[in-house]
């Protein structure tokens, strides 16, 4: 037996917490505050940071810029970490970024089979489905079946390349710019680049007429 699987009394420490998850969090928070390990108002700040300050709008701005400015696109594909940090997008789980571009020949899709690695600085926290067993287990072996579930229709000419985030490099998919977006501003373009387009499980869509 590995030393990690040996526990005093045969029970792992976490089994001493209350069974209900919400109560479990409260118990742990109470304990860590009493122990002087946590300042509860810092917890509010962290939650606010990820609920309100960091999100997929960051990634959408990066992609929109790459559609509009060939030199920005070139810089993004060559050194995404430096390029996005020049826009102020730095931080946890965005320390090493690589941008991978969809083309008529290649469709890219990102997964983390071992945990839930994801470019937080550009896309915020991952959605629940990205962290699900089904997405983690299937995407790497049957990406086309997964893409079909998401309603993504590939071009006949496109091969699929799946990126498994197994180290600290975080991948951003740069989708192809759709027809009919000529003349749109950066802001308008960012508006059609949904989070999933930058994971590879969706394609940018023009707004329906009248919207």
């Amino acid at each position, binding site marked *: 037996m590995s030393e990690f699987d040996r526990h005093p009394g045969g029970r792992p420490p976490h089994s001493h917490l209350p069974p209900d998850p919400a109560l479990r969090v409260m118990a742990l928070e109470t304990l860590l505050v009493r122990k002087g390990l946590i300042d509860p108002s810092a917890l509010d700040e962290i939650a606010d940071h*990820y609920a309100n300050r960091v999100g997929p709008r960051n990634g959408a701005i990066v992609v929109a810029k790459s559609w509009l400015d060939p030199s920005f696109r070139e810089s993004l594909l060559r050194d995404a970490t430096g390029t996005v940090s020049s826009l102020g997008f730095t931080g946890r789980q965005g320390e090493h970024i690589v941008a991978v571009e969809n083309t008529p020949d290649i469709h890219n899709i990102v997964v983390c089979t071992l945990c839930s690695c994801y470019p937080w600085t550009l896309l915020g926290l991952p959605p629940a489905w990205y962290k699900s067993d089904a997405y983690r287990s299937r995407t790497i072996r049957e990406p086309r079946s997964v893409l079909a579930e998401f309603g993504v229709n590939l071009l006949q000419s496109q091969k699929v390349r799946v990126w498994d985030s197994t180290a600290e490099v975080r991948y951003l998919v740069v989708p192809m710019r759709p027809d009919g977006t000529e003349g749109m501003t950066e802001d308008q373009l960012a508006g059609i680049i949904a989070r999933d387009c930058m994971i590879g499980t969706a394609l940018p869509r023009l707004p329906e007429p009248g919207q």
Partner: protein
Amino acid sequence: MTRIHDMGGRFGDGAIAGRSGGRVFEERWHARALALTLAAGALGHWNIDMSRHSRECLPPKDYQRFSYYEKWLAALADLLVRHGLVTCGELSDPERSPACPAHQKILRPAHVATVLGRGLTYTRPVSGAAKFANGAMVRTRRHTANPLVIGGHTRLPAYACGRRGRIVGCHGAQVLPDSNAHGLGEAPEWLYSVEFAAAELWGPDTENPDDTMVLDAFESYLEAV
């Protein structure tokens, strides 16, 4: 041998639920669990690789029944006990724990944005050049086992063991999780993106032979072919 988290390629999970997305935090306690984990991590008693390994070491029956943030909470409790910051008795009855003065590195709200926005870099200087050039053919090691610690952490998924692939990128030298997860030093190694043909990984289960899979692999995971 591998642990429960290493699920790439397995059968049986069915359709992907909740594809339309949803809120960042579906329950209030999810936000609290994430924040507790990050705030406790900021104390500096463990690193991100130790954190991941703690989640991977959850007993399979717990890993399967816990939702995502329950895994985080359980792993956090296990780390706190492992590093001597709390006891199992205190986990069962937090109110009985005596009030303590603040830890020297306690994360204060004024520092949160800076700490989260600064991030950490995993690139390290190493002596010697990268062993593999772009385009080189390599084979991954045959076993997913951590060569330093029995049952230890590694980032080579089981589905990719003993497979031939091609180097398609190098990310510099970075901290080696297999060592760093166990307090054995950062032991930086060159990190490569390795591309595999679908059929090399999946054999008769290949969905489409034109497709490829890329993963990031440290130099010690690879040998020349």
